[in-house]
């Protein structure tokens, strides 16, 4: 009971902080909505409003090329009162989504999957944070709060991914697969999480043979994708949405600056090379899935975590919302933190980039005394910080596995030669 009370207190505080920020600073939501670090062309709340307006006036929301988000968001938001007149309902929706994500995260933490999976048990499994601390680290992460206030639709994707993982560790593979398909339906890239997620479910399957299991999963993925797309078709009345949503993810027609690495690269590129490099970039992004899933077969949850980190760096339209999702999963591996080597370096790099990013963007766009290279340079630093973090946590987990095989090496220092 006491856990529940503490959980309720935590959730209430988190909701209160968000509500306070929403209401005490009325200019803040719109300010953050306009920030390129939070809103990307495929998640922006402003663009959602535009799509919603067109949808409510019986025009195809994809006319005009501003709205690139999934069609099913439209009926959901058109049920709410107009967000300009009654913003409180929108605020409550976004706060609830954050709390739902935190709830899923707590379920993942409670399962203990991070410390001991079916095939692997960490020698450091006794060192752990409670699920409350992990949820608090997520709910009070400034990136999460800023994302919530900025209201991009990526929070729905994050919530769906967390629920997919939570259901997978609970053993209900069908629900899990449906949640992941929904995430993929919203922003496509989560489909790359399918292999580790299937393994996560596979490790908890009851009795059926592995062929039956994978056939069942494949049909579940196919069925739910079909259902979602068919519903979208019925809502919008044409298949146009496919090219306007997934086409934008794949082909990157909108080069609005963001914290990722793609936009600048594709601005500078000659058009004849564009298709080739689109292929290369997407291949690069998806190539991690196979390798990591095989190498870390014994810890599929960690594969999910690390892939989320990689997506936050390398996906076409990343934002700090993706980073906050990665940082939410990271504390699950608190037991290997002592094995990490660059924690302070990564923390400072990410913090520096967080401060310098808006400063350089201001110099470029408002003051006019800087140029695009200023902001791009800082997104490189940001990505560097995150890559070091991803590499470092990967190192820590591999080392943890290695120490099971070679107990005599415990506590000794490794040097690459």
């Amino acid at each position: 009971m006491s856990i529940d009370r503490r959980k309720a207190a935590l959730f209430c505080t988190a909701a209160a902080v968000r509500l306070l920020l929403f209401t005490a600073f009325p200019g803040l939501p719109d300010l953050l909505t306009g920030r390129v670090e939070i809103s990307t062309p495929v998640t922006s709340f402003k663009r959602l409003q535009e799509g919603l307006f067109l949808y409510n006036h019986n025009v195809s929301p994809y006319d005009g090329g501003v709205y690139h988000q999934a069609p099913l968001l439209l009926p959901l938001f058109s049920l709410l009162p107009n967000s300009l007149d009654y913003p409180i309902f929108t605020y409550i929706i976004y706060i609830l989504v954050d709390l739902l994500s935190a709830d899923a995260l707590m379920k993942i933490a409670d399962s203990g999957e991070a410390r001991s999976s079916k095939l692997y048990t960490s020698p450091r499994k006794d060192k752990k944070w409670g699920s409350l601390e992990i949820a608090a680290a997520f709910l009070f992460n400034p990136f999460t709060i800023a994302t919530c206030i900025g209201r991009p639709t990526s929070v729905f994707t994050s919530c769906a991914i967390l629920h997919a993982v939570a259901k997978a560790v609970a053993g209900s593979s069908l629900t899990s697969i449906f949640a992941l398909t929904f995430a993929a339906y919203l922003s496509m890239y989560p489909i790359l999480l399918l292999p580790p997620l299937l393994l996560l479910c596979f490790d908890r399957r009851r009795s059926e043979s592995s062929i039956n299991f994978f056939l069942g999963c494949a049909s579940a993925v196919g069925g739910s994708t079909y259902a979602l797309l068919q519903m979208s078709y019925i809502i919008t009345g044409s298949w146009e949405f496919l090219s306007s949503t997934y086409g934008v993810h794949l082909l990157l027609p909108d080069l609005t600056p963001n914290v990722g690495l793609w936009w600048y690269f594709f601005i500078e590129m000659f058009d004849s090379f564009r298709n080739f490099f689109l292929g290369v970039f997407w291949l690069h992004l998806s190539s991690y899935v196979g390798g990591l899933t095989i190498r870390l077969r014994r810890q599929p949850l960690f594969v999910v975590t690390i892939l989320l980190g990689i997506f936050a760096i390398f996906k076409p339209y990343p934002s700090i919302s993706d980073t906050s999702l990665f940082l939410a999963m990271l504390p699950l591996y608190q037991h290997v933190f002592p094995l990490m080597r660059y924690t302070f370096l990564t923390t400072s790099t990410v913090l520096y980039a967080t401060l310098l990013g808006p400063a350089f963007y201001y110099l470029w766009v408002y003051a006019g005394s800087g140029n695009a290279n200023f902001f791009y340079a800082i997104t490189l630093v940001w990505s560097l910080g995150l890559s070091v973090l991803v590499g470092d946590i990967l190192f820590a987990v591999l080392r943890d596995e290695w120490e099971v095989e070679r107990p005599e090496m415990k506590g000794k220092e490794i040097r690459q030669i």
Partner: protein
Amino acid sequence: MALLSSGVLLKRDPRLLKLPPYLSFLCIAVGIAWLLLLPLNDYSRRTYISENALLPGQVHTYFAGSDQHVFRGFKHEVDALEGKSNTEVNDKLEEFFKAAGLKVARQKFEYKSAGEVYQGENIYAILHAPRGDATEAIVLVGAWKNVEEEFNRSGVALVLTLARYFKRWSLWSKDIIFLVTPDSRAGPQAWVDAYHDTQSSPAIQPLPLKSGALQGAVVIDYPFNHRFESLHIVYDGINGQLPNLDLFNTVVSIASGQMGIGVTLQRMWNHKDDYKERLQTMLRGMLKQGLGHASGPHSSFIPYHVDAITLQPYGEGWQDEMAMGRVIESTFRSLNNLLEHLHQSFFFYLLMHSGRFVSIGTYLPSAMLVAINFTIMAIYLWVKSGTPISKSTKVASTMGEKSTPLELVKEGDAIAILPEEITGVRERELFLPLAVVAGTQFLGVLPLYIFNHTTHSMLSIVFGIFTILNTVLPYFISKSIIEYFGPTTQQYQLIKSFSLLLLGMFLSSLATLNFSLAFLVGLFAAPLTYIQPLPGRPILVTVLSLLINVLAPTAVILAGVFAWELNLGEVLKEAAFGWDIWGMNTQVVVWCVWWPAWLVGNILLYGKARDESSATKAVK
């Protein structure tokens, strides 16, 4: 990098662990020395015009002869308007502008700040370019009252004369806007805001008449009747932003090269161009930039990326109003030539003479070095807080021995060298340090809110109370932290580490936006690098706490007020005015960056670490 960042190298060699404090001191020293070197010929550069289209001083100016009579006439009319109300003045000015054949419009504005109301009405006239398409415009501003509240008698008359004169020419390819504001502080801001449709409140009317994108603005501040000697150029914008150096160079080259008028800056009336004078000019410029307030009507234009300067004639000499008019004419002819927005030359520079400057690449390292000193100490303290306690004795005993033996491990293709030593890292207790640092950062919002929302009459009293609280509060906070949490040495180290890390990050980000402010705050905060709990040495603590309190933000503000013989209430009112109307950010830096770091430093000074050995025993 790998070795340094993980602290492995630091932990391995005790001599290296002693190094960072000296290194950070070296950073500060080099940073200051760097700044002092800048005025030398080897480090500063002569100014030059980057934008070829400007062609300053290449045209013949025709503002002379009969225009002098026109000027005298307008002067007479303007003198007659002295002391009249804003509306009466504008009625008359409207007549004049209309008589010159220009379109005229007016704009009412009203601002509220620190319990006072600032209101008035701007009047402006647009000369549509005979050869342009109204996509670009240049502004000529004459404020009715200048920043010192003097009646800008010749300035406004000159604006009227030039409006009439410019109308006669067919060579303009950009629109020219003649703007007369009732004051130099609120009026220009209201006009520029409304020109870009960003006015904050409905009390500021939108502009009924507009032209194209503003390319530049020149302000005339000529508040006396007699002839003048030289020209004083004011160029500082709000928040330390500066106009493009090309605009400044253009005016300097026209005034001194074409017209033979001397040019000075930063109130250095007799500049001998030696090291001392250059340094003084540069420091005055830095101080003004650091304070970030508006220094003239031009300042309001700069945040909108409109390059602007104020021209102030001064002294007794033989230059007359017509010479001033010709400088403006020639400048406008140069701006008229621009093919695109001024972008070639520098936006970040420090001027030390009308013909000498240093650019950002040369001066930025000095502020960065001061900021990096904090980061170095933060990293050092982080590493130190993770070093096992027992290690220190062990290291001391093994110092004489040769280096730790390495073991070669081979497995398949992989080879690794492992030192035969356990690289333990002490578990860090992060919660209390994070809470203390986050709490003090959050506390900074309080003074920021209070000083921007108190009425004028109360400001000095509130500041007095705050100063007194500020001196006693850290002691009690520190005592209560000791009382309730009993922090360990490690936690004190972490508190300091986080606080310095934040300070270093804020300052290095700030250095790219407002170099001078970052440098000044960095200097005042530099002693915080070396503050640590000193239990059992009360005399040293007293001395240090005196030093720290002298360097407190409040004390520094008071010292500045006394040094320049200002009125504290007026300074605070100006700060609130800047916050409300100009969008000045200096207070945010003072109260949310500097003050929290200072507070943490002061808390640390009174701190007393819990005895850890007894604590662990108690746990057992």
